[in-house]
């Protein structure tokens, strides 16, 4: 038997937009049950790297492997079926539907019932139960009947995480899950992510700016800079690197190195 593949791997992954190389030959592999933080200044290509893995963008060259199988040319729903779950940086939900319906739709997709034309949706009790179970987990069950557009921002972020939990993918990708949340809401989200990691043996990729969040969650940090992977390792080692110090701890970067101002964590 061949040696076991890492659950997710990117090989020399590259995308060009015209002359601009947004992600530049990134090779990294992710082990089952690990939580990797992906950091870097704004415009470093973190979200683009995510989009290449989950399929919203198609790579110019290189490969994405899931359990050793190339998924580089697959569509977004195919990748979702195979076990890649993605939450988005900007809240990206079904705004006119209820909170419960948002989660129910995910459970329905997972149960592959979307093309069932002649049963009443509400009669699939197991999907409703699944939705309520997840909503209880993210503490949104009291708001299950509300329309998503009417939810406060923090609750929308929670729902974003709820959709990912309901999807139950092998690989979970969070893009700044705590962005724009109030201080007292952040721990709720972090607990959920921590729980996902410990309970369910999932592989988690996390784009995050807040260093304290990264320190408390990550097993490993990858640093992207101008689309290229510049550092990869244990959190303590990576945080000590000069490039990270520049981007996160306020040291002035050399003008030639970054076009945009680095984000202050």
């Amino acid at each position, binding site marked *: 038997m061949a040696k076991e593949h890492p659950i997710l791997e990117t090989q020399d992954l590259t995308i060009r937009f015209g002359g601009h190389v947004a992600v530049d030959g990134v090779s990294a592999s992710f082990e089952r049950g690990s939580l990797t933080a992906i950091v870097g200044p704004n415009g470093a290509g973190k979200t683009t790297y995510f989009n290449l893995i989950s399929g919203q963008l198609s790579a110019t060259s290189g490969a994405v492997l899931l359990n050793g199988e190339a998924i580089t040319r697959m*569509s977004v729903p195919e990748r979702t079926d195979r076990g890649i779950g993605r939450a988005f940086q900007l809240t*990206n939900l079904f705004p006119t539907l209820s909170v419960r319906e948002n989660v129910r739709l995910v459970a*329905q997709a997972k149960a592959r019932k979307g093309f069932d034309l002649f049963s009443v949706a509400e009669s699939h009790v197991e999907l409703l139960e699944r939705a309520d179970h997840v909503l209880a987990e993210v503490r949104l069950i009291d708001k299950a009947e509300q329309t998503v557009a009417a939810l406060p921002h923090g609750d929308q972020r929670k729902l974003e995480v709820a959709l990912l939990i309901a999807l139950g993918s092998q690989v979970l990708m969070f893009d700044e899950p705590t962005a724009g949340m109030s201080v007292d809401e952040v721990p709720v989200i972090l607990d959920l992510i921590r729980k996902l990691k410990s309970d369910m043996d999932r592989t988690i990729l996390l784009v995050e700016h807040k260093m304290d969040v990264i320190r408390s969650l990550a097993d490993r940090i990858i640093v992207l800079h101008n689309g290229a992977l510049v550092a990869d390792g244990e959190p303590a080692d990576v945080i000590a690197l000069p490039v990270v110090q520049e981007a996160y701890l306020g040291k002035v970067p050399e003008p030639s190195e970054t076009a945009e101002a680095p984000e202050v964590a």
Partner: protein
Amino acid sequence: MLTRLLSGDTPRSGLLTALLLIVLISLAFAPFLFPGIRSLETAARICIFIVLVASYDLLLGYAGIVSFAHTMFFGIGAYGTALALSTTGPGYGALIWGTAAGAVVAAVFALAIGLFSLRVKAIFFAMVMLAVASAFAVFVSQMSWLTGGEDGLNYKIPRELTPAFKLIDEKILGVRVNGKLLAYYLVFFVSAILFLVMLRIVNSPFGRTLKAVRDNAFRAEAIGYRVVWYRTTATILSAVMAALAGSLLAIWLRYTGPATTLSMEIMIDILLMVVIGGMGTLYGAVLGATLFILAQTYLQTLMGVAADATSAVPLFSTLVAPERWLLWLGVLFILSVYFFPSGIVGRLRAGRA
């Protein structure tokens, strides 16, 4: 039982329930409640348009797809039945296979259009559909050896569905029980069944997914739904329902021509009926179609009465002169869209909460 029949999608508003019941009872007993040829024609037209408008709502209100080619599918159904009846004579076999062929052709067209053009942006899709529909209308009017061109087709339908056929000699409640009455009830019951089927579809897991695709296609993909297939299937279902409505019209009128099925005016009427009734609520199709067709049919008469009654008042009587009925119909639409932006059903349901 009733909830089951409505697929759990009850009107959820007292007033709406009352209005829908009035429409249902009026249509169910139309031949007895409103005797006369004209009112029966109106009632049948309402039944057929409820199906047609609901099928358009399936596309526009549920799947969020803007198409201006709905009359094409309506026409395909009508011409399917018409051609079968005019070429092979007035038999039930011809009626059934013509209708089935119309539905199949509509489905194939919808599949092709869906796969080719649903990937493009909504506005381009709408334009492509407009072009296809216009080309189809021209095509039908040019193929006069087959379709009768602008004159359309006149044909016979099975005798049991014509006024010449008498089921019983006595009148019931003063109404002749003849083939026309049977034809009306054929239209009524088939329309009712098709409406209930669509109500089931929009409340099925598939219908719910359509709403998700309408709300956020990008996210629907990211949770595993293949959006193009959902949109294509919705287009096909909507096209088949429109074609069946067209077949009903062909049977009812015993005539099929471009003006009754393919014209752009009908497309605009459908659009207005959906918007007035309320998008994304099939019940909106019922109220929209009923009100619109009643206004279209009786506003002129009503205004004639008003003009006569007010002939002493100079300006007012000119304003309500019967030939100005289109102006007033337009005013009614503007007012209804202004005051009920979410349609009558949307307004009634919101009012309850």
